[in-house]
Structures are given as structure tokens and as C-alpha cells.
């Protein structure tokens, strides 16, 4: 076991990507897929030039594509190893940055992991390094949006089995992060959260949840007294603001306009 304090992250002992490589890995766009690629690259010590999602890849003259199928087993073992190596916090940040879906995030993550594998848990302190700072920023952005949505989501009760239904349009793919919170909050209550932008939804029976990419057909029909509760909430919202302190600018900076569409108190 090498002494970790002496490992110099500027010369990573492990390479996931190599700029001289003649091939690229194409993966299916899932986190599992990306981890499978990275694990494979490390295992065979033949790093690709880049890792790209298969559906957005444009053929180029210099690199031949290699399709890598996601493997739950490889990804699982690799993430457990990463967790031991660089700690849970860094692994969580890796995942959060990944779901930001930023173009080119794969390359950023590979550079982050290279540093993390060399530096171990010290990576959490290496905020002045560019590759670490970038991931910290992305992860923070995702965390913020996720946290805001815990509050901003508005459920409406449907006629059909008192199902709660909400629509959101987040910038990041935060659906999987939201599920555990709402299961805790409303045990036994079935609900659906639909991400309009990605046309994905999570369904829950109040105990378990799963991600669904079927586009729901038909318009959800509200329960009879749903309008009453919405009107009551609007009345509360109108009356709780203090006119003498009015500050629309501050309000908008804390609750950006892009979220208003799905918040009923802002539909006057």
C-alpha cells in the first residue's frame, strides 16, 4: 500500500482517459454505464480518449467507437471501491455532478476520479484544484435545485384513487433524489412527479418508487374539492406578504420565475 500523503495528484497513478488514445467508449447515458466504462479503462490499462453517451456521439475521423454495455455488477464493485478509496462524500458529489447532465461532464468526472483515486480522502480538501472545484460547483448546483424542489413541488389530488400529482421542470435530473424525501413525508400515500423537460416520471405507492419513461396519456382529472384547497392556499399566500416591505426582486431571486409555472399560488 503506497503512502497516500506522498502521492502526487499531478501525476496520477491511474489514468481513465488518455489524450493519445485512438478510440472512445460509448455508454448508454446511465451512471452505471459511465462507471462501467471507467472501471474497464482502469482494469485493462488501455484508456480511451473520451467517454461519450452513445445517442449524442458524432463519428469523427480520429477515434474509433467502442460500445460498452452497462454492467450492474462491475459498476457496483467499482463504486464500492471508490467509496473506500476516496470516501462517501466524494462519491456522492460524483453522482450529483453526473445528473447535472452538463455536456462534457464525463470528461470532468474522469479527471476528478483520477485525482480522487490518487489523493484518496484528501480530495474533499483540494478545492483550489480546477478539476475538483468544477465538480464541487456542479454538485452544489444540483444540491440547491434539489433542495428548492423539496419545497416548490405542488401536488394536486386526482379523482383517481386520491393520487397526488405534480409537474416540475428542473434543469438537472433530480427526480431520483426527490423520491426518498416524499416517501418519508407521506408514508403510504401514492404519488407521481412528472418531469416535463425530460418526459420522465417517478411513481410511488408510498413505500417504493420507480422511474418511468412512459408519457402519461390524457389529462389528469382533479378531485372535486381540489380547487377549494388551491383557492385557500392562494388566499393565504396573498395575505401573508407585508405590503410595506414589498420586494419583488428578492422574492424572484429566491424563487426564480422559471419555477412559477407549476406553483399555483403564483397563478393569480
Amino acid at each position: 500500500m503506497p503512502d497516500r500523503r506522498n502521492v502526487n495528484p499531478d501525476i496520477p497513478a491511474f489514468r481513465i482517459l488518455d489524450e493519445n488514445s485512438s478510440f472512445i467508449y460509448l455508454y448508454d447515458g446511465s451512471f452505471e454505464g459511465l462507471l462501467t466504462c471507467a472501471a474497464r479503462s482502469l482494469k485493462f490499462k488501455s484508456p480511451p480518449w473520451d467517454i461519450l453517451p452513445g445517442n449524442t456521439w458524432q463519428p469523427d475521423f480520429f477515434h474509433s467507437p467502442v460500445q460498452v454495455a452497462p454492467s450492474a455488477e462491475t459498476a457496483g464493485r467499482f463504486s464500492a471501491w471508490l467509496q473506500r478509496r476516496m470516501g462517501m462524500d466524494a462519491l456522492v458529489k460524483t453522482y450529483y455532478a453526473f445528473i447535472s447532465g452538463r455536456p462534457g461532464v464525463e470528461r470532468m468526472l474522469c479527471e476528478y476520479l483520477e485525482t480522487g483515486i490518487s489523493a484518496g480522502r484528501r480530495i474533499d480538501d483540494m478545492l483550489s484544484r480546477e478539476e475538483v472545484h468544477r465538480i464541487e460547483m456542479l454538485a452544489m448546483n444540483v444540491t440547491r435545485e434539489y433542495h428548492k424542489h423539496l419545497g416548490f413541488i405542488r401536488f394536486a389530488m386526482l379523482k383517481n384513487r386520491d393520487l397526488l400529482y405534480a409537474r416540475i421542470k428542473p434543469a438537472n435530473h433530480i427526480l431520483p433524489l426527490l423520491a426518498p424525501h416524499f416517501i418519508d413525508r407521506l408514508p403510504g400515500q401514492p404519488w407521481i412527479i412528472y418531469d416535463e423537460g425530460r418526459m420522465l416520471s417517478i411513481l410511488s405507492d408510498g413505500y417504493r418508487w420507480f422511474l418511468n419513461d412512459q408519457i402519461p396519456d390524457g389529462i389528469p382529472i382533479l378531485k372535486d374539492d381540489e380547487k377549494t384547497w388551491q383557492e385557500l392556499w392562494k388566499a393565504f399566500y396573498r395575505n401573508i406578504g407585508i405590503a410595506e416591505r414589498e420586494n419583488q426582486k428578492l422574492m424572484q431571486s429566491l424563487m426564480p420565475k422559471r419555477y412559477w409555472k407549476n406553483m399555483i399560488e403564483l397563478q393569480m
Partner: protein
Amino acid sequence: MNIQQKLSILADSAKYDAACTSSGVTRNRNGSGTGNGAGSGTGNGAGSTLASGICHSFSSDGRCISLLKILMTNICCFDCKYCVNRSSNDVERAFFTPMEIAELTMNFYRRNYIEGLFLSSAVLKNPDYTMELMVETIRMLRFDYRFAGYIHAKSIPGADPGLVRQLGELTDRMSANIELPSKESLAKLAPQKNYPSILSSMAVIQNGIQNRGQLPSPVPVRSNVSSGRSFVPAGQSTQMVIGATPENDRHIMTLAEDLYRSFHLKRIFYSAYIPVTSHPDLLPVTVPPLLREHRLYQADWLLRFYGFTARELLDDSHPDLDIRMDPKCDWALRHLDRFPVEINTVPYEVLLRIPGIGVRSAQKIVRSRREGLLDFEHLRKLGVVMKRAVFFITCKGRKSPGTVENAELLRSCLLKESDTRLVSLSTFGHSQGEMKPRQLSMFESSPENTIWLPGREDRQKCLTGEM
């Protein structure tokens, strides 16, 4: 009167209470939480809480809406002169039954409008009667509706300690409002309230907090491990009105310090006085002193998280916070002999005292300087506000080029930094009707001859008590 009219009246009269936080407790299905609340898992209960709190919306004044903040009733037998609900005021009155409050809370909660309930009340008949009704309401929510979300209840001044304790066992946070910053002001403006009874309510709550866990819980806990009797797990807070009476900032901050020290309060809320009435005993205010409120919050933060004492910030020669800049900047300018400091070596406590560095960036600095010496560029990345910090620090022994040493010059630089020119008085009139905008000169820095207007950052933030 229908429920919507009632809600409008009773939300409207509750809005002056600044507290709307849902923070301080984590409670979830795993039963690992420490909060108060009926357990569930059977499908009809609801509720969890998160230590960091969740804002569900923001009102037109930019304050966070986290809780259903209502009065049980605004029918009041007290006649406090600063209060909109005082008995002599001619406003519409309404009353919620416990069942109505429980239904509203549950239905709002289920739709994710709110994180819980903030129940306060005017004094109906007498303090004990009012408190009994509040206890009844919250008991109904916790037991009949099995609500495990956040509940903040106000202690009614002068109520029986037994009732305060009962309420404490059912709620997550309690607050007894101190209302005004001095005994004399309280006696003058709220003749039916008095300091000893408010402080004794605080003491009852604090006592309960210290002895929690001693007795078995009266509330069925979700987990099979009984955590013992819980008592206001998110702690207690209080509120005072600023600017209705003549106390200076030094008096207010010293009081705040005493309250934090003796009652271990989680928060003190300062509420800029909004004229709801005119009365000869009240200072004539036309516009709420929002900027002063903002500075008090900043100073309050310095007391709680930055290791400052009230005496350091304010003294006899300096009894009020400088309205033109944040209190930490002001303190640093009066202690220039302690600066500049070397970012790479000084301890955390010193980092916290540098203007432009907050708790978060100080922690980041401490962590990342272990991994190599930091430079100005790194600090910017770590979230340090360089336009302020740059005057007070060195990196690897160097000062940033272009910083000034002269105290007066430095003061004007920092004032100028708050963006003096682009502010229109109409959007931010804080009682300085006589101020006329004119060119700011670098060398006029005394309050008398400097035209100063709040910077963009302050203007935006000072209107929120939420920060």
C-alpha cells in the same frame, strides 16, 4: 363567514410575526429522529422534518413561507399600542376552531404547500383560556390526525406554566415574544404584558428543554425504540419590534446577548416597526427601518457564529451600528492595527473576523490550505468576497496590488463598494427625506457629509428577516 375569509383575516394578522423557520429537527420513518410527533406507517399519518428546514414559497416581501402561519383568533382583550390586533383597533375579527386548523394543516401539508404549522393567537378572554385552546388544537393534530410535521407554537404571555409545558411536549419549537427591547417601553406600550411574566415563560421552556428525555413520551413514537419525552426539540426563539421605541442598537444587542446566554435561544427575530397606528407614545415612523433591522441581523449573526461580543461591536462612543456598512467591516475599520492577516497561517477564529469571509468560506480556507498555499485567485473560487476581503489580507506574504492603507481612504473605498450611485430613493426610502443624491467624493467619509445609499446587496437582503 366562510373558511376562506377567516383564513384571509387570520393570516393577515399573523404576518407580522417574523419567524417562519422549519429547521432544527430531523425526523423520518426510520425513527431515528428526535422530534415530537405521532408516528405512522399505517398510511393515514403524515410527516417528516428536515434539520435544514424547507422553504415552500416566498411571499411578495421576499420572506420564506415554510409554515402555515396563522392566528387561532385575532379577538384580543389586550390593547398593545404597536399591535394591529389591539382591542381598541377597528379590524375584522375571526376565530378558527381546532378542527378547522387541523384540516387546513393536513390538506396543505399533503399537497406540499407547507412544512407544518405556526400557531399563534391573540388573547381571547384570558391567557390560560387561549393556551388551552391552542393545546387542544395541537393535540388534535398530533393524535387524531397523526401529524408528525413541524409545529411552532407561540406561548401566550401570562399563561400558566403547566400549560406552557403541555404545549412544549407537543411542539417542535416554541417562542415567547419579548416584544420590545426594554421594560419601560413594554410597560408604556403593552400595559397588560410585563417582562417578568415573559421571561418566566422562557424559563419554563428552557427548563423543559434541559430536562427532556427524563420521562416517557406522551406522544406515540414511530420507532419501536422509545426516545423518551421530547420537549421543543428545535429550541425556542423570540421576537422584538425595532424602531417603535427609542432604544439604541447597543441596548438591543446587549439584550440579545443576554437572552442567548441565559435562555439558550435558537434565534432572536428583529422586526422593523411598521406603523399600523399612530399614538403619542410611539416614535413617529413613516417607513419601516428595514436597513437598521438588516444591520441588527448581521450583528446578531456575528454574536452567534463569528465569536464577537456585543461590547466589541458597540460601545458608549459608538452606540448604534453604522447603517452604511455591515458591522464586521465597521469593526475591522476601527481595528486596522490587527490587519492585514496572512490567509495561509492565521487560525479559524481570525479568519472569521475578516470582512468578506463567512463561516462557509473560512471553513473551506482551513480545509484547502492543508493541501497547498492559497493565492488570491483561489480565495475567489472558495467564495470569498474579494472586493471587501482584499484590504485586510495577505496571501503568501503579499498584499494584493492596488489596496489602500490609509484608514479614511479605506472607509470610503468600502462605502463606494456598496454601489452608491445607482440607487433611487423611491425604491428605498428609509426616513432620510432630506437626503439628496449628489456626486460622492472619495474624501468625504464622515456620516454628515457623505451621501450614502444602501448598496444593491443590502437593499436586496435587508428586506428579509429570513436570512
